[in-house]
C-alpha cells in the first residue's frame, strides 16, 4: 500500500511546498515595501505621506477580514487574468499571495515599529537620507522580528494551501480531502496529517534558527 501511496504523497508535499514557497516569496516582495510604508508614512515620520497612510490602512484591513476560502473564490477572474487559468497549483499561488501580502505588511510594520526611535534619530544625525534609514538601520534591526513573522506566515500559508485544494489546486490538503475524506481512506488522512505536522515543524525550526542567528541583541 505504502508503495502506491508514497509517490502520491511525495507529489502532494512537493505541490504544497511549491505553492507556499512561491507565494511567500511574491508576497514578501510586495508586502515588504507596503509594511515599511505603513510603519513610516505617518505624520511627522520618516517617509511622511499621511494620505497614503489613511488610504492603505483600510485596504489592508479589508483584505485581511475576508475569509480565505471566500477570497480564493472571489478573485478567480483576477487569477484567470494573471495565470490564464483558475485551476491548478500555479493558479492557487495568486489567492495565496493576495492573502499573504497584507499579513506580511502588518508583520513588517510591527517589527519596524519595535526598533528604538533613538536609532532613527542617530542615523538622521549622521546624515542618513530617509531611504538609507530604512535600508541601513530599520530593516537590519527589525530582521529577527521579520524572520519570525515570515515563519508565522509560512505556517499560515500551509494551512491556507489546504483550502485552495477546494478550488482545484493540488497539494496535501487536496490529497486529504479527495482520498482521505471522499474515498473513506483514514490511512491516507493520517498520513497527510502527519506529513503536514512534520512540514510545519520543520518550517518553524528553520525559521527559529534563522531568527536566532540574525538576533545579536542577546549574546
Amino acid at each position, binding site marked *: 500500500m505504502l508503495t502506491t501511496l508514497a509517490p502520491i504523497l511525495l507529489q502532494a508535499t512537493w505541490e504544497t511546498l511549491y505553492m507556499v514557497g512561491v507565494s511567500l516569496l511574491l508576497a514578501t516582495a510586495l508586502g515588504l515595501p507596503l509594511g515599511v510604508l505603513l510603519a513610516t508614512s505617518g505624520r511627522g515620520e520618516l517617509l511622511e505621506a499621511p494620505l497614503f497612510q489613511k488610504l492603505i490602512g483600510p485596504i489592508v484591513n479589508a483584505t485581511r477580514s475576508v475569509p480565505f476560502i471566500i477570497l480564493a473564490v472571489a478573485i478567480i477572474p483576477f487569477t484567470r487574468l494573471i495565470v490564464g487559468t483558475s485551476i491548478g497549483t500555479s493558479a492557487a499561488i495568486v489567492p495565496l499571495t493576495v492573502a499573504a501580502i497584507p499579513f506580511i505588511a502588518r508583520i513588517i510594520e510591527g517589527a519596524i515599529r519595535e526598533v*528604538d526611535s*533613538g*536609532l532613527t*534619530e*542617530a*542615523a*538622521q*544625525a*549622521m*546624515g*542618513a*537620507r530617509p531611504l*538609507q534609514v530604512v535600508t*541601513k*538601520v530599520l530593516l*537590519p*534591526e527589525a*530582521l529577527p522580528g521579520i524572520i519570525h513573522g515570515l515563519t508565522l506566515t509560512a505556517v499560515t500559508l500551509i494551512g491556507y494551501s489546504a483550502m485552495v485544494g477546494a478550488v482545484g489546486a493540488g497539494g496535501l490538503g487536496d490529497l486529504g480531502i479527495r482520498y482521505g475524506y471522499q474515498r473513506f481512506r483514514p490511512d491516507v488522512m493520517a498520513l497527510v496529517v502527519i506529513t503536514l505536522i512534520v512540514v510545519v515543524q520543520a518550517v518553524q525550526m528553520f525559521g527559529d534558527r534563522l531568527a536566532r542567528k*540574525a538576533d*545579536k*541583541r*542577546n*549574546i
Partner: protein
Amino acid sequence: MLRMYDRLGFAAAVFLYVRKRLRPMIRLSNVQKTYPARRGNDAHAALRSIDLDIAAGEIVGVIGRSGAGKSTLIRCINLLERPTSGSVIVDGAEVTTLSKRDLPLFRRQLGMVFQHFNLLSSRTVYGNIALPLELAGASKAEIAAAVDPLLPLVGLDDKRDRYPAELSGGQKQRVGIARALSSNPKVLLCDEVTSALDPETTRQILTLLKDINKRLGLTMVVITHEMAVVKALCDRVAVMDRGVIVEEGNVSSIFANPVHATTQSLLADEFMEFRAGTDAATDADASATISDGQEG
C-alpha cells in the same frame, strides 16, 4: 616693492586667521521653538529667544533641569528639530534654510553622541563606527582607513568584532564617540552622554572627550544636568531654565559666583551628590568586601 607685498601678504594672512578665530563655529540668534497645541495640550514653548555663540575648538556646556529645553537646543544645531524662528549659523553658513536634499550633507559635518548610545545591535563595533561613512558612500578602503585608527583612540582595539550586547555601558559610549568622530566632523554634539553611566565610567568618558578636544581641536557642545560634567569638561557654560539661557560665562567664574537661582540650586545638587557619592562609594566598598568573602 617686494617687501611691501610681503607685508601685505602677512597682513592678509593675519586678517584671515583672526577672522577665522573670531567667527564663531556655531551662532544661534534669537532661536525659538514652539511645539503646536495637540489634543488637549496647549502649545509649548521649548525655546524662547536663545542667543549663543560657540567658538571653534571650544567646549561649551549647556546645563539645566529636565524640561529646560537643553535637548531641544542641541537638536536645533543639527536640525533634528527645526527652530520655529531665528537663525542657526554653523561654520559661517545659515542652516535653517537648507533643503531636505542638502540637510544630510550638512549633518555629516557634525557628530552626535547620545545618552542611550543608540548603537545598532545588528552591527559589530567596527560596523557601527563605519556607518556614517557608509551613509556618505565611502569605499571599503576609505572606511577602513578612517575606522582603524579610531579603535585605539577610544580604547577598543580588542573589541573590533564584538556586538554591542557584549559591551559594558562605558564601552558602548566609546563606540558612540568613535562613530561620531568617524566622518571627521567639525563639531561634536554630546547629549547627556554620561547620564546612563556610573561615576567611574563617567570620569573615563569625560577624560576621553577632553583628550579628543585637545588632540583634534574639535568644537563640542555638551548637554548635561550635572555640574560635575561641566566642571570636568567645559570651558564655558550656559545655564538654561524654562527655555531661556539665564546665565552664561566661563566655568570658573560661574562656579565661583553663581548669580541665578537655577545655577545656585544646580551647584547645591552637585554638593549633595558629592556627599551622597562618597557615602555610596563607602557602602559599595563594604558590600564588595562582603560578597568577596562569601565567594571565597
